[in-house]
């Protein structure tokens, strides 16, 4: 049994399959960019992409990613070069405490892969699954709208 995490194939052990995916990612793979905000599937801080769909890893088990491709925040930058979406978050001051940022970026990435020309309403609707308590979302929305051109 395998899964692909951030482009790397990983063998899954049988006794890991019932583990919470969030714990597996954070504690076993040490990918701590994926955060635990509510452990209830409400806040979106634990968002990862599974086959390019945003999913809440606190609501999944390791068995849910067998033969799937998983992207965590650590997989966004390539060779120390920030992804244009990450850069856009910095350019628009969309980061404050940073705790929601990984999940927010991944949800936005999934949207832009599907829709390279989203309206503001579409952006707001896509990221409604991710809570942010610092920014009031405005600069996050602006950075996603500005990053869309890099997906075209």
């Amino acid at each position: 049994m395998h899964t692909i995490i951030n482009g790397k194939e990983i063998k899954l052990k049988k006794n890991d399959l019932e583990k919470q995916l969030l714990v597996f990612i954070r504690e076993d793979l040490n990918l701590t960019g994926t955060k635990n905000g509510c452990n209830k599937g409400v806040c979106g801080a634990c968002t990862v992409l599974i086959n390019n769909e945003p999913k809440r890893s606190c609501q999944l088990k390791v068995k849910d990613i067998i033969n799937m491709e998983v992207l965590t925040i650590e997989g966004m930058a390539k060779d120390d070069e920030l992804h244009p979406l990450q850069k856009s978050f910095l350019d628009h001051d969309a980061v404050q405490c940073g705790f929601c940022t990984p999940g927010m970026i991944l949800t936005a990435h999934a949207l832009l892969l599907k829709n390279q020309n989203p309206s503001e309403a579409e952006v707001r609707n896509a990221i409604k699954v991710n809570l942010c308590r610092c920014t009031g979302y405005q600069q996050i929305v602006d950075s996603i709208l500005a990053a869309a051109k890099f997906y075209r």
Partner: protein
Amino acid sequence: MMNWRNDGIAKVTGQAKYADDIKLFDMLHCVPVYSDQIHAEILEIDTSSAEKSQGIVRVITAKDIPGVKKFGQIRKDYSLIAEDKIRYEGDVIALIVADTLENALEAIPKVKAKYNKLKPVLSPNEACKNEVLIHDIYESNLINHHKVRKGNIDKGFAECDLVVEDYYETNFVEHGYLEPESAVCQVRDDGVIEVYGSMQHPFSTRRFTAALLGKKLSEIEVITIPMGGGFGGKDDTAAIVCARTALASWLCKKPVKMTYTREWSIKESYKRHPYQMKYKVGLKAGKIHALECDIVADGGAYTSVSPWVTWRSTVQCGGPYIIPNVHTDVKTYYTNNVYTGAFRGFGSPQVNFAIEQIVEVIADKLGIDAITFRKNNMLRQNSITVSQQKLDNHIVSLDQVLDKLIKESAYYRKLKKCSFGKGDDSKLYGIGLAISYRGCSLGAEGKDFTSAIINVQFDGSILLEVSVHENGQGAETAMINILAKELGVPTSKIRYRRSSTSQIPDGGSTVASRGTLMGGGAVMDAISKLKSLINKVIAPEINCQPSEITYKKNQLISPEGKSVSWEEAMGIMFKNCTYPYAFGSFEAPPVTWDEECGAGKAYFTYVYSAQAAEVEVDIKTKKVKVLDIFAVHDIGKIINKGLLSGQVYGGVVQGLGMALKENLQINDGHIITDNFHNYRIYRANELPRIHDFIIENPDPNTPSGAKGIGEPALELISPAIANAIYRATGKRMKRLPMLAEDICTQ
């Protein structure tokens, strides 16, 4: 680059390590054990069964505490582990330390306790009778009583031609930081206990930890790491979580981590104070002539910083208006509810909610426009505040911010569109605004000083360290921005050295919108000292007097245009055996306060704000949709526009949550809304764009000219919304949050 923050790359790549992301070798896991009680005597705590549970290293109770058992920032009434009594549902009776988190969690129900139930006190109205005392060592449940006594209140009301009385109330509010409390502690080989925690006041955390462990301050080192939001909420509770983790680490002699679940966080952490506010306002010839306020706050089970929070309500109780006769009482009582403490806004959002509606009620009764009424009564240059402070040492810009708001929001044009409960459509429309003045920094709450260290390396790279804390707002970046500008070097040359409590002197808490103001002051002082060291050495090299050197574009330049680069200059410093190192400090200008009559120079300067909101109310469901927000603030001077706007947007949205959405429900002392599925905060799709406008009147009292924005942004949106709902529906909303069902039943 304009939009740059020193921790930005780490935060967008997932590399930023928050407390729960830290793993130390051989680390144990700790969890708290709560009782199921609200108010009870503890007869017995039996840990024997829990101790036999798998993987348990130790079960800690109050009897294991080597230091003091009760602590607090003002009154030392908080039991870090409850020993004799349960005073609210968030009291912790034991800590379980185990090899894994799973094993620790498994043992929680195995801790058994016996209680003698006591009658719970669930509201300040019961508490004030003192029939049941929450803390037996105090004679009364009253935590504090602040007063304002100005003029002659009886004579004042007797002279009035119109008197308006009103009652308003507000609810508990949860901070809702995305990262729950977490701490990792270890005992170092030099005997020092190291604390990595999600907290916004490292020095207070150190005091709590030292007290609990019976250690000296120098034996505890609290280290700054990224923190997932605070908003005032990561002061006491966060410090307590750190202190308990340090205790577990000290007793087990191993590294220990304790990370809270959201449910534990909401159960245990302090909230914003609910207020009950009786207002009586007297008018004489169209001017506010007398004000009587009777304000009661629910302090919950412990004091925390209630006396400071509610003190701000005295200065701001009358809004930004001139009122000659004032009689205000603000009282906080212990109850068996969750305790209340610091929260962005700090005692002002509540009173603003009341007064900024009352002025409109009065204007209606007088039959004049609410803006005109405000302008006839508001504070101007050299005006005297309700707490008898003459505003003569900075520019009082209420007129300027209000005019800007009216223009940018097209207020008068939109006023004509308001429905007042009547509409052909299924939607009712309204616009409303509010204004405020807000004292900067701590004011007469406490000692207000802070420190900074600039340590330039001989290759020209710079280490900067300031005793303000990075809460996510970008405090570190703002400090770097100030230094880079003054030294004429790019920000890339400056590395912010994350401070630890062992490296830099105690600079107080990063609260009260004081980070940029106070930290910036300390940085400016350090810069001036650093420059005098450098100028003395470099002046002969470029043939000028030390005082004549300017710092621009990475050069040190003489009036004749002779120059050396920053790097060359630091090389020369090395050859001269002179350290380019400076320690700076900044003490807030003096403030005064007379507790008996509530008068004095409460704050050394003020921020002036005006915000407007447009709403649409569905006729059938009475659901309120916010259509547009305009925010104008005079913050002195802009240090970093992007970060500043971020504070405005974030503050406004938190204020909107308090106004319309966030409804913390407590049933017999138990919080029902225990996670984000039932304690709902705003999501991106429910919000309009916010238009922010900044007015700059550099403040002569602060070295950088900057004031603060964190709290001004939040403190006045709820009355603006209430005024908008009134113009949409014709109904006055007197309770926060303003829920659809309340609009219906009115």
